[in-house]
């Protein structure tokens, strides 16, 4: 009986969560007593006795489930439980509900968890579109509508797109660079376990008095500092999501820098690795800013400090500056890993080396550097310093250059390639190039100060963000999931269902988001539950396409679940890829390799006879062909 609660696991997690919550309440009561306040707040403004447990209870859960066990024993100088690698690999579905240090298990945990949040966020989008199908109020009231679009955005950004990329990279990146695992496997497990906690905090805010947070995913002060309790759930959830992605990024950086296989120089790394290297640089250096911004809002809300209180010498606009200093780099955090995925998929399925490989890598670094200098283009109408507008416009236009390099390099890769569309992954990759370019161009339009002032806070913004995040990021996520599904599960998916899903998604995306540009330019405001009746027809059309888009995702879910269970066994290398993850079995062995492979060439030498990227141990070490042998295709 006692052992049930002392062993790391769900029972101990439940116990620790309760104890930690009680501890949080206790702290509040004691601190209030010390400072001479009534132990329980009577006026109910900041809800400290709810907010503090919201921080301590998730930490208690992490302690209970076993994320800190090893470190605590180590720190107190106790004998650490010897790592017998029994926590490697997953042998039944139950192993996915334990703290596991295997990067492949963590990758699957990440992907599945964030996909569940995608479905929940998608359901919210369906509710939003149902409400907007007709002018007037049909399904939800204005207050619920505000909560819905805020939660939709937060779920999609913080617990779907960002961790989904982290999850896919978690799975394939160590394989790609020939590493047996990530650099810090226990930190990796901790990063994962913070993710569901963040998502649950966001969702739990619906239970708070006053409803879920409704200040948008941006949570601008002073709207957020005066909002009901739900806003605090957002402030704290973002901290957990933020720490999770900082630790993952740190892990990726250390893994990439210190654990590459012999022979894998930086210029022999696949572009997915380059993409995650640059994304991680962004995450490590930018994410603390949203942490800081949300801490400030939380302090203003609970302790009644004056960061953003105008009357007491605070500065309201400073919130937006600090917030966007993270959140503009964040949009690149949400697309750069996708760029990496597209590069992999395109080169494999067009059987050609990446056009301008080094420039592709440098363009990623260029985006990283430039992305820190464009944040205020979100604030052209915010009343900030007017002298900052034109410099921000120029840097914004400048960042289109490295992005354009990537687009043209993909086109150059496709040019005269043997394009195979036998895989749904390639269809999504091709569609992404087109769709993302449209979104990118509307981004350049929005970078122009006069045009931005015209369409600020209209549906044009909604159209732009969904073209880049759905048509860009989500398409790359689907491309990546289809591409590595055989590797992750050892099964092939149903290509026919994949095609239905692809065409449904493509038509649904364009049908939903293209008309939004038009109603936006005509002045339909975003984030409002009701609108002028002149936009009624367009909105009905948008809603119909949106429902279709939502429905075809169920095909994807069905396809993935059924194929994982019953699909035909996948060969080790179904697409004929050259990078190392395709040279191991599907799914890979528990420890990835018996011995670390040796890298002898670039990762994309398609069409070059005899060219090798890596030699697995035990293979005959034949002399690899050099690039001079023959020009490809």
């Amino acid at each position: 009986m006692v052992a049930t609660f002392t062993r790391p696991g769900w029972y101990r997690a439940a116990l620790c969560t309760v104890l930690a919550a009680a501890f949080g309440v206790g702290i509040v009561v004691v601190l209030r007593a010390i400072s001479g306040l009534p132990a329980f707040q009577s006026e109910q403004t900041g809800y400290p006795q709810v907010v503090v447990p919201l921080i301590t209870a998730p930490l208690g859960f992490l302690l209970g489930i076993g994320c800190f066990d090893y470190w605590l024993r180590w720190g107190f100088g106790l004998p650490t439980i010897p790592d017998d690698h029994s926590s490697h690999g997953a042998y039944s579905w139950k192993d996915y509900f334990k703290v596991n240090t295997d990067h492949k298990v963590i990758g699957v945990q990440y992907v599945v968890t964030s996909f569940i949040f995608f479905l929940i966020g998608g359901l919210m989008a369906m509710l939003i579109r149902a409400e907007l199908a007709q002018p007037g109020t049909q399904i939800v009231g204005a207050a619920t509508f505000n909560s819905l679009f805020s939660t939709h955005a937060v779920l999609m950004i913080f617990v779907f797109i960002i961790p989904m990329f982290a999850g896919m990279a978690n799975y394939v990146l160590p394989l790609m660079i020939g590493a047996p695992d990530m650099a810090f496997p226990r930190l990796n497990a901790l990063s994962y376990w913070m993710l569901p906690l963040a998502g649950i905090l966001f969702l739990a805010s619906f239970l708070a008095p006053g409803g879920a947070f409704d200040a948008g995913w941006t949570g601008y002060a002073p709207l957020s500092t005066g909002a009901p309790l739900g806003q605090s759930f957002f402030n704290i959830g973002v901290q957990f999501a933020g720490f999770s992605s900082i630790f993952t990024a740190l892990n990726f950086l250390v893994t990439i820098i210190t654990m590459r296989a012999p022979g894998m120089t930086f210029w022999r790394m696949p572009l997915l690795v380059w993409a995650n290297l640059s994304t991680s640089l962004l995450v490590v250096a930018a994410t603390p800013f949203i942490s800081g911004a949300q801490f400030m809002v939380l302090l203003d809300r609970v302790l009644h400090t004056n960061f953003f209180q105008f009357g007491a010498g605070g500065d309201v606009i400073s919130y937006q500056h600090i917030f966007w200093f993270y959140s503009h780099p964040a949009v690149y955090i949400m697309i750069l890993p996708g760029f990496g995925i597209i590069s992999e998929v395109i080169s494999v399925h067009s059987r050609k080396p990446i056009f301008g490989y080094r420039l592709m890598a440098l363009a990623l670094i260029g985006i990283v550097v430039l992305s820190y200098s464009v944040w205020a283009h979100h604030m052209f109408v915010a009343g900030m310093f007017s002298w900052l507008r034109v410099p921000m416009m120029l840097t914004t236009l400048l960042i289109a250059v490295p992005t354009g390099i990537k687009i043209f390099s993909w086109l150059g890769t496709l040019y005269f390639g043997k394009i195979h569309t036998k895989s749904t992954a390639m269809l999504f990759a091709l569609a992404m190039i087109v769709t993302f370019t449209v979104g990118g161009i509307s981004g350049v339009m929005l970078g122009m100060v006069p045009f931005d002032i015209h369409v600020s806070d209209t549906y044009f913004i909604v159209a732009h963000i969904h073209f880049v995040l759905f048509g860009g990021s989500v398409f790359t996520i689907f491309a990546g999931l289809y591409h590595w599904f055989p590797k992750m599960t050892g099964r092939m998916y149903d290509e026919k269902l994949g095609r239905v899903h692809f065409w449904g998604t493509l038509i649904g995306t364009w049908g939903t988001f293209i008309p939004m540009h038009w109603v936006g330019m005509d002045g339909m405001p975003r984030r409002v539950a009701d609108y002028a009746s002149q936009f009624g027809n367009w909105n009905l059309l948008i809603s119909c396409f949106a429902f279709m888009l939502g429905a075809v995702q169920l095909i994807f879910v069905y396809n993935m679940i059924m194929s994982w269970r019953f699909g035909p066994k996948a060969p080790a290398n179904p697409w004929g890829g050259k990078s190392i993850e395709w040279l191991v079995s599907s799914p890979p062995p528990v420890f990835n390799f018996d011995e670390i492979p040796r890298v002898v060439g670039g990762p994309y030498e398609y069409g070059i006879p005899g060219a090798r990227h890596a030699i697995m141990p035990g293979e005959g070490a034949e002399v690899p062909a050099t690039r001079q042998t023959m020009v490809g295709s």
Partner: protein
Amino acid sequence: MESASVPLPHGAGGHATGHDHHGPPEANVSSRIDRQTLGILLFIVSEVMLFGSFFASYFFLRVVVNPETWPPHPFELPVAVAGMNTAILVSSSFTIHYALEAIRKGNKAGMKLGLMLTWILGLTFLFVQINEYVHIGFSARTEAFGTIFFSLTGLHGAHVFIGLCLLTAATIRAFRGHFDKEPEKHLGVEVPGIYWHFVDIMWIVVFFTVYIL
């Protein structure tokens, strides 16, 4: 070993040679810097940016809002006390450096002494800081100045606390003799040491910005 008895489900692929495999292969070392040191350095980058967000707020409140005087009229900061406290924290950087140098030479007693001294100095700093908070005469709710004063120094205080936790672990392990067998493997002292230097340098920046500038 237990793991050897666990049936490998997909064992066909990499196990053609048939020998028992007890763990993952040793990773190739592709950089001269070791993982732990690089990890803590990257974490410090992150921490610097967290301080950066609060410094950004500080300069918005001071430069953009631009009150007539800074600190605003009734506020006064105990610069002398904080200056003394600065001296305490800076000297702790030297003691942790002494501890590291000692273990590098294999001098275990010197390491223990250095760690203890650092720990005591760090704790003294925290106590002086709390004492300053109690007697300073305003709170975080008093104007934006009170807010940013308490949040910058408080954020730093929280980092001193984290640093002290790391040092505690290092000290416990040192006294339990974890570095006795192989003194050349002393990352458990080096990594907290790097973090402690960061805490120290960050305090100098906070001190000059908040108290002197």
